[in-house]
């Protein structure tokens, strides 16, 4: 549905490639993500998802190809990209020995928010998560689900144009996953582009568009409905299995 607004691209990757010695982790991937879109970046473990994300957020330099994030070049304008994106890594990205409030203060400060902004947004954030009474608790003492939701909110604190979520729901119970996706939709509704990797195929159905990576290449790209029609199956899970099987056969 959002594919129509091509003029305003949040991410625009062309023939993006990353090699580590002989091994090609990301092999000429080309895709784009429109502003405000929820884009699912799928693939089996080792398919090259994390490498691709690292290039887009500026942690790795591409070997070949080019990409623009929020309109800026990943090779030359990393500093500008960083101000415009939020990032939640695979591993829990908050500090367990700091309180909820202190973590918020830290990230607000790092992203250049003023003290007043931090104070105001902390109130809103805690209220929306229902964590107001736990503001002084150490993050380490929160249940995992709460931690993940908090981490996501903190990644959005500076109101980035794009937020990158690298397997944000790993190890989280189904109810919390559901709540987490509600948070994602809220962010998208506010105009934030969400770039999310996951290996839960049911979550893929929630995305506006998805891409499926196999062996460093993008094997499928489109809305969940388009892909299901293309492969003649009833769920994204089946699409994925078909692609994965094809990859095993060719290998």
């Amino acid at each position, binding site marked *: 549905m959002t594919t129509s607004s091509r003029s305003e691209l949040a991410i625009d990757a062309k023939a993006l490639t990353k090699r580590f010695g002989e091994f090609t982790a990301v092999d000429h991937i080309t895709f784009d993500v429109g502003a405000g879109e929820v884009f699912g970046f799928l693939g089996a473990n080792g398919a090259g998802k994390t490498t691709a994300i690292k290039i887009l957020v500026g942690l790795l330099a591409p070997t070949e190809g080019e990409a623009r994030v929020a309109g800026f070049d990943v090779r030359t304008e990393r500093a500008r990209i960083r101000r415009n994106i939020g*990032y939640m890594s695979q*591993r*829990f990205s908050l500090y367990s020995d700091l309180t909820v409030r202190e973590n918020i*203060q*830290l*990230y607000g*400060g790092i992203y*250049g*928010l003023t003290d007043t902004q931090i104070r105001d947004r902390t109130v809103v954030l805690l209220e929306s998560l229902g964590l107001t009474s736990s503001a002084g608790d150490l993050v380490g003492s929160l249940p995992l689900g709460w931690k993940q939701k908090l981490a996501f909110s903190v990644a959005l604190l500076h109101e980035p144009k794009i937020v990158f979520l690298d397997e944000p729901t790993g190890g989280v119970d189904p109810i919390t996953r559901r709540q987490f996706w509600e948070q994602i939709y809220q962010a998208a509704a506010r105009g934030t582009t969400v770039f999310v990797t996951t290996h839960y195929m049911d979550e893929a159905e929630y995305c506006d568009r998805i891409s499926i990576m196999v062996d460093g290449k993008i094997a499928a790209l489109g809305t969940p409905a388009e892909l299901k029609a293309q492969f003649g199956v009833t769920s994204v899970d089946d699409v994925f299995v078909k692609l994965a099987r094809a990859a095993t056969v060719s290998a």
Partner: protein
Amino acid sequence: MNRGALRAFIVKELRHILRDRQTLTILLLMPLVQVVLFGFALRSDVRDIRLAVVDASPDYATIALRQRFTSSGRFTVVAVARTRDVIEPFFRRGEADVALVFEPGFGEHLTGTEPARLLLAVDASDPNTGTVIQSYSRAVIAAYESDLSSGRGGVQIAMETRMRFNPTLESVNLFVPGLIALVLTLVSALMTAISLSREKERGTLEVLLVSPLRPIQIIIGKVLPYLGLAFANVLTALLAAWLVFHVPFRGSVLLLLAESIVYSLVSLALGVLIAARTSSQRAAMLAAMLVTMLPSALLSGMIFPIASMPGWLSPVTNIVPARWFIVIARGIMLKGVGLPYLWRESLVLVVMALVLMAAAVRSFKPRLA
């Protein structure tokens, strides 16, 4: 904007440090415990030296010199004999540490034109102790000699300079500067390495690297709080040394603190480099021990004199930062000298700090990671 980011990051670091009360307590007490333990246990000054005297013809001079030895408080005369062969068994049985052998007619020669000769034989089976005994003995003889010559308006003898800055030869005076180096290394290199590799291990470093924080800011934020801690440690060590061992402080405290900061920066940069090259806290800790703590203790001249190291090893000590810092700290504390005498060592440290800091910042450029 950048300043706010750095401030937020430093606040976070301080919170980490203050929240971990156990570690903080240990770090704050460490210099105190180390100064006291090293001060008492690691003494290289020798007491109760057993002296055997061979005096073929006792006269006023030999007896005066013997008395000088006993009245120094370090020597006990265990045997006096007329010939050397009587003394030999004492040595072999380990009942004497040093023998003083006067030539016959020692006193007469002292007043005459011929030099008065005496032999100092030291049990050097433990070379360090042997050297120390030799130095003590020579100091006693030199003092006697110089008194004699000055009484007659003669020339002073040069032996005096040897123990000038440490007249009582208290080894604790020599250890305290070394201990300061050790404590600084521990707090700076080890703690920085641990704290940075923890961020790496837990994945938070990645999030920081994706944020607008620049690598240099991350390093400053990591380094600054520990620099403060190191500063407190230097003061504690100095205070403990002064209160417990009455170690003199002859030079400028400010200069020593400034040099300590430079030395800390060197160690902090090493800590950052170690963290950059290791993937777990445990590996970082062990690497920091091996790369910074051991050389600082063993190759710095703190315990083992560099002069007595084998020929191939002593040039190696030049790359150990603590070696330079110890020369500086001893110079300031014991000799009371300032930059005009210590600029070379200081320059070495400053260059080391600059080069290592640049390397540390480079090592955290995410593109190279």
